């Protein structure tokens, strides 16, 4: 019994090692990239199109719409980052139905990596949108006193992102593993189905929270009403 797929090491050379997290991540990358390549190889521009193209169009437009609903005015600018976050996490979580599969999102290293990406991306998009001065100004609003709290909030929510996803996925895998040993037939299947739902919800939560953070960083604050 192991807590993280990081512990399954296939090859190691010094600090460089090839563990299950990295290998399964490559697998997911291969599936996503190759599937996209194969489907988008011959896209139809007409009204008649293939089922796979329809599926991808639904997925992409749904993500785009969701980003827009969060409050980001130009969703296509953030589609590459937020869409990849959702698709990666969702694919990694849905893979749990495969026997012998260890979801990379069950590794705290992966979730920390993703949270760090969000941590970097939020100020990056904020600076691109408002300029460096405008973005840094948001840390001292409404008063300078809020500066340390804002910084702590930034770090803590990144940590929360990482730990939430890791905890949910790790616990799901652990519960299924424990149930397999206790009641091998019915409950593991039910818990697997529940795990699929939990996985999708976590993917949604992770990407939506990232979108909200970016939206908070990029949106120009509305001018306060003046007292006449």
């Amino acid at each position, binding site marked *: 019994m192991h807590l993280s797929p990081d512990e399954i090491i296939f090859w190691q050379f010094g600090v460089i090692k090839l563990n299950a997290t990295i290998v399964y*991540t*490559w697998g997911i*990358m291969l599936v996503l990239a190759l599937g996209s390549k194969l489907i*988008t190889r011959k896209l139809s521009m007409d009204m008649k199109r293939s089922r796979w193209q329809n599926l991808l*169009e639904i997925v992409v437009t749904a993500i785009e719409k969701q980003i827009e609903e969060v409050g980001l005015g130009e969703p296509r600018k953030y589609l590459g980052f937020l*869409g990849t*976050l959702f698709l990666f996490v969702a694919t990694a979580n849905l893979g749990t139905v495969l026997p012998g599969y260890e979801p990379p999102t069950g590794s705290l290293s992966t979730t920390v*990596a993703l949270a760090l990406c969000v941590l970097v991306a939020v100020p990056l998009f904020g600076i691109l949108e408002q300029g460096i001065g405008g973005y840094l100004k948001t840390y001292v609003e409404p008063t300078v006193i809020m500066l340390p709290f804002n910084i702590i909030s930034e770090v803590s929510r990144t940590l929360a992102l990482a730990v939430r996803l890791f905890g949910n996925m790790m616990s799901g895998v652990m519960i299924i593993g424990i149930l397999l040993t206790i009641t091998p037939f019915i409950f593991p299947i039910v818990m697997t189905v529940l795990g699929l739902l939990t996985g999708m919800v976590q993917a949604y939560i992770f990407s939506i929270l990232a979108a909200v953070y970016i939206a908070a960083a990029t949106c120009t604050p509305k001018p306060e009403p003046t007292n006449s």
Partner: protein
Amino acid sequence: MLIDWFTVGAQTLNFLVLAWLLKRFLYQPILLAIDERERRIATELGDADAKKAEAQQERDEFQRKNEAFDRQRAALLSKATNEAQAERGRLLDEARQAADALSAQRQDALVNDTDDLKLAIRGRTQQEVFAIARKALKDLAATDLEGQMVGMFARRLRELDGQAKECLTDALKTAPEPALVRSAFELPDEHRSALRRTLNETFSADLPLRFEVAPDLISGIELSANGQKLAWSIADYLVSLEKGVDELLKGRAKPEAQAEPKPATKG
């Protein structure tokens, strides 16, 4: 330790690579396809709108032409109707004039026929009257018509009243030329001498006489001298006979004129 920092770095790199790959192979092509389809749909809708507008324009044009054609047709029809009515009126006038001319011609012909008939009747009556009178006088009084006429004329001379007789006497006496006796026939010598004797007795003078035959007197004798005239003839009776014949002919002509067909006025 749950966090392996090498794995963290590797996963970060993996995520960035995956983001690039998906952007390259998923988002861009799919969004391009969607945009292209939307553009095509917009173009097709635009084309459809343009075609609809064009169709509407053509429909309006067709309607306008149709109305113009209807108006033109109505105008032509009205013009043709007016021309036909004018032509009909003209033809009717011509027919009426022709009928009037024909009627007038017939009337003239009738009048001519009447005149001819009157002349013929007049001549025939004259002959018949003479023949009857001659025959009747001859049969009844054993004397001829001429003798009776001369006798009649002599009786008139003798029966002349005062003023007329004076006028005639003056005229006979003052006439530079002999008095003229005109008769419808050649008077025999006995009648001439009887007439001369009667004149001499009546006017108490020896009057020179000149005899002349004038068939238009119609069985009569006329004495004229210096503008004065005394005459007796059957023409008076013939005139009354002629009046009777005229009335008879007028009575015949009226029903014929009423029975003439009227010119047709049907169009």
